[in-house]
């Protein structure tokens, strides 16, 4: 662990209970659209880059900040950095983006943005996360990809 943590004592939040699977969802014949809870479940266990905690436990992601329109192929995720000058904001956003890129069908247009007013360089981070060319180039960087995979992998 890094000795120079930016946010030494982050506030912890209670995790959501497991989702109840309905009989309709188990029925293969019923078309089951993606909803906010499902998207939340895909990203809630992403590890924070500096704490041995998940984005859910740090309240970086929250179901209420996820919008899904399955028919229009749109997923909008807003995330809240733990502190307004968090230097990890881009990395966290990138991890969320990559996780959704891998988990969702290619038809989805995914937007990942910082919750308005929760980060000092919100506009710059949002612009970078929205630039698919820079995201693609970043993902070809094996060192950065290693760090992201660490965030996305199961906790040691």
């Amino acid at each position, binding site marked *: 662990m890094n000795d120079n943590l930016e946010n030494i004592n982050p506030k912890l939040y209670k995790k959501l209970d497991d989702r109840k699977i309905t009989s309709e969802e188990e029925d293969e014949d019923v078309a089951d659209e993606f909803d906010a809870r499902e998207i939340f479940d895909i990203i809630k266990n992403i590890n924070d880059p500096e704490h041995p905690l998940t984005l859910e436990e740090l309240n970086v992601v929250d179901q209420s900040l996820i919008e899904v329109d399955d028919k229009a192929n749109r997923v909008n995720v807003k995330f809240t950095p733990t502190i307004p000058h968090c230097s990890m904001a881009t990395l966290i956003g990138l991890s969320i983006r990559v996780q959704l890129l891998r988990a969702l069908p*290619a038809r989805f247009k995914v937007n990942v943005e910082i919750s308005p007013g929760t980060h000092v360089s919100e506009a710059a981070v949002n*612009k970078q996360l*929205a630039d698919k060319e820079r995201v*693609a180039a970043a993902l070809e960087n094996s060192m950065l990809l290693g760090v992201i995979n660490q965030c996305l992998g199961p906790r040691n």
Partner: protein
Amino acid sequence: MGTLELKQSLTGHKGRVWSVCWHPTDALLASCGEDKTIVIWRLEGLEWVTKMILTEGHSRTIRELAWSPCGNYIASASFDATTAVWDKKSGQFECNTTLEGHDNEVKSVSWSVSGQLLATCGRDKSVWVWEVNDDEYECDGTIMEHTQDVKKVRWHPHEDILASASYDNTVKIHKEEAAKNDWSSIATLSSHTSTVWSLSWDKTGNRIATCSDDQTVKIWREYKPGNETGVATPNNVPVWKCICTVSGYHTRTIYDIDWCKVTGLLVTACGDDIIRIFKEDSDCDPHQPSFTMVCSMDNAHTQDVNCVQWSPTVPGQFASASDDSLVKIWLYKE
């Protein structure tokens, strides 16, 4: 409204296709993408078929490619920080020159009309101009005037004037200063409110169309010193003015735009998977033109459209490239 007909879907690339480019005279099309290959397609009868696949020129994504005006060379810009020049002196296309200098990803490459100059740009915020002499490439100048990632470079259709578009929301025009023998920016086109992804000159070179992450297309016009309209030109330098903004049509980032030199039509590639065609209204004021959308193809691709380019030889024909790994050939009819 005109009609847009899909002539063919070209499969072969693995993963995202970033760019397509037509051969200047022959029925050949080249495409490139994240699979690090260049595919050359040839029209045989009524079918486009794979003629050649060029590999091993780049170690990372090939972002863009450009045929030289003579049609004998292909330049390819890659995230591996190099630009490769391919020739077919041996009968096959081979990479015989690799241009190095950019610090990281090269995003775009363009040949001047004479084929004597090559421009590249990249994430290191710089634009490079290379001089071509008997297959030798020498850096003629580096322009460091953008403050962010440079996305696109395009030469003027007749003169050695270069335009570049950037993540810093501006387009800049560059020219060689004869006295200093150095390249510098002579105009900055500011109006877009987010990344300018691409630009295209019209056939005269007096106007430029730009497209942006702000979901608009803008038309810019050059006013030279002493222009009849009375637009002030301080320091005796031409001034570029935004004379039209096309907004309300695109619902996501516009990644590319091409202005047909034959028909005058504009085509756009958008992150909402739609290809749109615009036509200038015939009776409009040239200083305040208006453009009408004459065609919109929903689900032109199943993912983002990254690139569109009109055929230089077949009026109304254009090619598109998409994240869905396909290249498509289209024919627009009025």
